[in-house]
């Protein structure tokens, strides 16, 4: 450069990656390593001076704790149902939006909007509109004579689970829509024309043309959303705090409660380690189906 100082290419490359490496080591690697280390310690946050190494005792504790397994199965139910609904609604809405209609941009904007609404806001709105006594949803259902008794949306284990799933579907279906829409835009129109010429109806065209084209993106999105949904904390904690009883606990809420309410940071961390193991499995599946790594060999 001007001052006769030129960085070699390699130096520029390393210089550019350096901040990332520093941040990654400090803010990602270290906390994760620390989380794993804590899983082997008894750690009361009020008395860090008493922290002691306990070997596998935290893991023994969680595997012997019925609540851990309840949380695990409840998380599985909540994840599966959320994903099914998100995928079905997501594809349906994406197809609706993938039309050349005047004003479609407005609809698209409104339908994607829930994705950016803060979880705190949604949880509060949910508690307001689904309030059994003063909420507008029960009022509407009652005045339409669809129900006689008010529905206790958050007071019975099954309804509370349904309400959290509803919230999750409402907030994250747009994510599926975004991904599917992005893919739909790349489907060559000729494929449809060919199918039309062959005399295929709307349903056939969807099954024969659209769905195969979406297969890859859907698998990726499903794996992704499964990993995330399984580990969600705020959606559940802010709406039900895991209740009533412990009927909407998942592992994230379990970990949080163990860490803070029970003052067992070690047990919370051990739960985190179990979650990490499970998500690594999910990530491997993701890498396989998404085909990352294969194209590295042929740049």
């Amino acid at each position, binding site marked *: *450069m001007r001052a006769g100082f*030129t*960085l070699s290419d390699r130096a*520029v*490359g*390393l210089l*550019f*990656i350096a*901040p*990332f*490496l520093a*941040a*990654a080591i400090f*803010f990602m690697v270290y*906390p994760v390593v*620390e*989380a794993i280390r*804590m899983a082997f310690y008894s750690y009361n946050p009020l008395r860090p001076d008493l922290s002691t190494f306990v070997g596998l005792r935290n893991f023994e504790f969680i595997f012997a704790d019925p609540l851990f397994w309840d949380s695990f199965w409840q998380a599985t139910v909540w994840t599966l149902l959320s994903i099914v609904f998100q995928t079905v609604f997501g594809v349906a809405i994406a197809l609706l939006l993938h039309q050349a*209609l005047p004003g479609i*941009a407005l*609809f698209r*904007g*409104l339908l*994607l*909007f*829930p994705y*950016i*609404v*803060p979880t*705190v*806001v949604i949880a*509060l*709105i949910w508690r307001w*509109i689904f309030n059994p006594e*003063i909420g*507008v949803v029960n*009022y509407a259902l009652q*005045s339409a004579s669809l129900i006689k008794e008010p529905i206790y949306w958050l007071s019975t284990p099954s309804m509370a689970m349904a309400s959290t799933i509803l919230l999750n579907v409402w907030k994250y279906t747009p*994510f599926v829509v*975004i*991904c599917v829409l992005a*893919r739909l*835009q790349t489907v060559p129109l000729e494929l449809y024309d060919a199918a039309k010429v062959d005399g295929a109806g709307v349903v056939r065209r969807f099954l024969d043309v659209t769905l195969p084209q979406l297969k890859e993106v859907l698998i*990726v*999105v499903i794996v992704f959303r499964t990993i*995330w949904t399984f*580990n*969600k*904390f705020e959606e559940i904690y*802010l709406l039900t705090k895991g209740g009533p009883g412990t009927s909407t606990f998942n592992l994230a809420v379990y970990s*949080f409660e163990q*860490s803070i309410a029970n003052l067992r940071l070690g047990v*919370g*961390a051990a739960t*985190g380690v179990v*979650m*990490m193991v499970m998500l*690594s499995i999910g*990530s491997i599946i993701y890498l396989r189906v998404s085909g990352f*790594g294969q194209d590295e060999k042929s740049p």
Partner: protein
Amino acid sequence: MTRIEFWTLTRRLASYAVLSAVTFIVCFPLVWALSTSLKPKSEIFATPPTLIPHAATTENYKALLTGRPQYFQSGGQQVTSGTTPAQFFTRWFVNSVIVTLGSTLISITISTLAAYSLTRFRYWGRTVVPYFSLLGYMVPSIIFVFPLFLVMVQLNLTDSLLSLVLGYVCITLPFCMWLMWAFMRSIPIEIEEAALIDGASRLQVFRQVVLPTALPGIIAAAIFSMIVSWNDYLFGRVFLNSLDNLTLTVGVMLFFEGTHVDWGLLMAASVLMTVPMAILFMALQRHLVAGFGAGAVKG
């Protein structure tokens, strides 16, 4: 009218009808929140509930924006009862803006530099970093939060906005890194090579050729980062302590957890904290679809 035109018209009308119905259901919770926020206390619990307030008022918004205190009677005098959440609303808003912009700026800078380095230079480990980032992206915040919290304690940074900026970098950087990497990879290298042959330095090429081309990716990553930081509750809840330092999500939950829920005020707060994200979203909606297409679904 020909038959084809007739069918097209019918199909369009049907599409609009379905789209409108879906949009109504999706948007209803937000519309209801807006409606509640504009009602005077007497109308909030009115039966039948009103969608459009009869006596619309901006009282709730005024209370939040001017920080109105509460009073009680003692010995015939009005005495202020000290601090109320409403008094801190504007402060929390500013705090949220600061941490959102701060963490986004850092994440974007680091990830753009790193992505350029990873896709344009050859050195050991460059293929591992994206996978590593992907994994980091999938690790849920609940695992990071306590170890990172203990780091902040060591650094004496707890209860500061800086701790939150760093915390959000930690959760947004992996995705930004990955998205920028996917995006950079898809930018043809030929233009840069041409510029280099013309005698431009690496840094000049980066500034004048790469950055402008990468802008859509940068915008998508920035939107993602801002949404995550603005909406987070968990990190704010754990890292921040004093009222002055809270962010919106943590502070607004204080309105709810008291003994007396002022739904009008709460819904007004919900609306106000959604507005910045809504503006951002409307302005940059297109990029979101394009960018997520590149990142989440792999280009």
